[in-house]
């Protein structure tokens, strides 16, 4: 729908970071890649869809930030040294950073859809999507929500083990 397309309309490339296995460095790589792309002069955003273990806010030292609303939806938190990386994570919606998110699939699905359609990303060259381990609800929902935007590419990370 038009409304669904609007918030991602200004995003040129969407990049998924996947692994299957946990703990191989998805969040670390997503963060470093975002910073490297920003260093190269690109406008970058990170969407953290790891609802159970959101690590990106802490990695960019914005774990205490709050999310605000604007006319087009949620305003992403600006992170990084120059406050130029647009970040959305469930980490910002928790009352305390230690709060556990113990949700079943349908609730996760609903929030991920909102993250995709209701965040005012603005104009970005790259939106990096950090995923949790596994191949489950979060991954299916994210791909389905992003599919209309036809801008998908994915990076797979693993360790040699």
């Amino acid at each position, binding site marked *: 729908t038009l409304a669904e397309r609007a918030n991602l309309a200004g995003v040129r490339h969407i990049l998924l970071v996947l692994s299957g296995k*946990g703990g191989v460095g998805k969040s670390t790589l997503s963060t470093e890649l975002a910073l490297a792309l920003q260093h190269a002069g690109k406008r970058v955003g990170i969407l953290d869809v790891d609802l*159970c273990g959101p690590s990106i806010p802490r990695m960019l030292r914005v774990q205490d930030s709050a999310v605000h609303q604007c006319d087009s939806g949620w305003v992403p938190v600006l992170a990084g040294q120059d406050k130029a990386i647009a970040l959305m994570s469930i980490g910002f919606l928790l009352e305390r950073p230690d709060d*556990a998110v*113990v949700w079943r699939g349908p609730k*996760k699905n609903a929030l991920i859809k909102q993250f995709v359609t209701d965040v005012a990303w603005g104009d970005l060259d790259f939106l990096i999507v950090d995923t*949790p381990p596994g191949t489950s*609800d979060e991954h299916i929902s994210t791909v389905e929500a992003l599919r209309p935007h036809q801008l998908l590419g994915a990076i797979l990370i693993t360790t040699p083990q």
Partner: protein
Amino acid sequence: SSSSGDEALRDKRARILSRGLPKQKPIEGVKQVVVVASGKGGVGKSTTAVNIALALAANDSAKEVGLLDADIYGPSIPKMMNLKGNPELTPKNLMRPLKNYGIACMSMGFLIEETAPVVWRGLMVMSAVEKLLRQVDWGQLDYLVIDMPPGTGDVQLSVSQNIPIAGAVIVSTPQDVALLDAHKGAEMFRKVHVPVLGLVQNMSVFQCPKCKHKTHIFGADGVRDLAKTLGLDILGDVPLHINIRETCDSGQPVVISQPQSDAAKAYLKIAMEILRRLPVPPA
């Protein structure tokens, strides 16, 4: 008084909400269930679960131990226990667990091709977990160790709502982002009323095989601090040692392949600490 009125309202609400939930029923033949969880991926749950199961068996050869791999998406137990193949069906149509090193094992990995991804939504996962719990002929087990997947979602909820759990062991590395997730893991068990036996500090320190210099790759003592914050005990400390990973990758976990090693001794100690904290088993 209004507070007792509030309490009555809360109780009523809880009763109504719980009507749709599955009833907790013990698995036939299984005396006590210990789950190994973390919240964070890649901290060593499967490695720890496998070695704990073997340590429990090594500690008392009269005890029967089972190992359930509840990581539907990334089952590691088959490889670590050197087991392959489709489970047979008993006359009662239950799956027979595959056995190695005296441990009865069941895993999603036995039911699908090694490289086949399981791209399922929560509802199908719930059904798969139910099958792995109840449609298996476990026989008589003193302990069933359950290796959980990372996260705090469907699998964790399904397991804790379906069966009574004697205790949960939370594994973490000392790294901050791992501790954050471990904290959430502990919180999750509190929410579903599963007793947390304690934390295992994994990959605590790396010692160079050449010069013996020690490096705390993932930070030092983070797990001890978290344990203090949560009021939990540390069940044990396992170093980052190439042996542990190599032996698991080759299907010969360190507890049985190198029982005299420091790593094996660390796992044996963790098993003893678990036994000390478990309630007296049912007769």
